[in-house]
């Protein structure tokens, strides 16, 4: 059976690991490569780097960072933030990313999704969706770091990105992000029910039970978290251990599994 994945997310600005709260207020935390290696060693199933600035200077630092990270990380790497052309995707994959996450640019030009998928394969295209509850029955999609409401209805948009060839959806609830009150279960389930591609839950986890809840109460394939891991509130090992106790299939990294160089 496929394992439910735990993804460690690192928000990057000018090559530094930072953390924002509710899409506002940014704090620097440290060297992203060190953190990423630590998460790799703790058993993260994937590592995601999101460039929150994504101007050309920040992008160049992202390439350097990716190049360093790849030498020591042997799980899939996803990179996102300001990805807006097929050339961007190509450069990031060449620099060592396994998947590229596309957000605003997909809304502005949905054909970008199919262009990238047809050249690099659907598995390498993750569509990032930031959404917010507008009324009881309606969620809408936001872009440009949560600053612009597109007016697009979330489930319609999710179905559309699947049709255009997205390999996965990374769904961040702007309502729960940064709150530590748990993932947005109703929003996630609405999207999981509508698409057949994997959905990654993002935004709001504050403790280990939130991971259990998201996998017991929705059909999300993966859960992504950032600050809860950065500040050491919780380790990936603890999360996996708890999920495993609840019979949720996860990959457990064995303590004696460390592999060194030639004998």
């Amino acid at each position, binding site marked *: *059976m496929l394992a439910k994945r735990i993804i460690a997310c690192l928000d990057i600005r000018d090559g530094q690991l930072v953390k924002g709260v509710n899409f506002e207020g940014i704090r620097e935390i440290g060297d992203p490569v060190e953190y990423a290696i630590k998460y790799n060693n703790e058993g993260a199933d994937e590592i995601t780097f999101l460039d929150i600035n994504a101007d050309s200077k920040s992008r160049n630092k992202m390439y350097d960072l990716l190049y360093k990270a790849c030498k020591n990380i*042997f799980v899939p790497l996803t990179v996102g933030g300001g990805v807006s052309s097929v050339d961007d995707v190509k450069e990031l994959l060449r620099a*060592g990313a396994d998947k590229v996450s596309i957000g605003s640019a997909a809304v502005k030009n949905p054909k970008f999704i199919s262009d990238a998928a047809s050249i690099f394969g659907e598995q390498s295209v993750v569509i990032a969706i930031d959404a917010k509850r507008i009324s009881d029955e309606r969620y809408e999609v936001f872009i440009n770091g949560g600053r612009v409401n597109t007016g697009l209805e979330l489930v319609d948009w999710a179905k559309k990105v699947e049709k255009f060839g997205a*390999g996965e959806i990374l769904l961040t609830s702007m309502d729960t992000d940064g709150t530590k009150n748990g993932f947005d279960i109703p929003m996630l389930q609405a999207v999981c029910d509508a698409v057949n591609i994997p959905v990654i839950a993002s935004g709001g986890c504050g403790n280990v039970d939130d991971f259990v809840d998201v996998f017991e109460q929705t059909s999300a394939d993966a859960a992504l978290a950032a600050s809860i891991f950065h500040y050491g509130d919780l380790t990936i090992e603890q999360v996996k251990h708890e999920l495993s106790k609840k019979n949720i299939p996860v990959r457990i990294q064995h303590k004696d599994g460390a592999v060194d*160089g030639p004998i």
Partner: protein
Amino acid sequence: MIAIIDYGAGNLFSVKNALDYLGYDNKITNSKQDIMAAEKMILPGVGSFPAAMKMLRESGLEELIKEEANKKPLLGICLGMQMLFDISYEFEETKGLSLIPGEIRLIESKEVKIPHMGWNSLIKEKDCALSKGVNEGDMVYYVHSYQAYTSMDYISLYTKYGGVIPGLVFHNNIYGTQFHPEKSGEVGLRILKNFGELK
């Protein structure tokens, strides 16, 4: 030296990074001299079977790989593993390297999502040199829509997903992994190390 065969397909650097990390001398190369001088060969690959075989043929490496595979260990990864078999039906009928008997077809199941993507657990059919230290239930990272259909004789590790997905196959000194050992954490590194230690 381990030759990582570069015929124009795929991200070869993640395989190189893993071998560097493990401390094995390696080289990404399409030079016939390098491949002939190498102690071992790795055939990586992502993309589609017909395109990859075409590139291999046009680079003049197809016959060389088949010849060298009689003399030294070869590891095919993902599409590189599929190319070790006789024939593939991805898009169109395409001949493979015929180093292991079997064929490549779409994963046959209505119950599971295709592509098969993510971490899945291994079941041990029988030991081979590369499965040393790998335990039943260990998880590895897969990304594929097509799979090998072959005799259980050639299967060391497999995964249940719909039906049986051959994970690690072998025949004499030829090995192939459908999963990505370079992206499969400690388990993947263990398998690459086992390959690096082959005599």
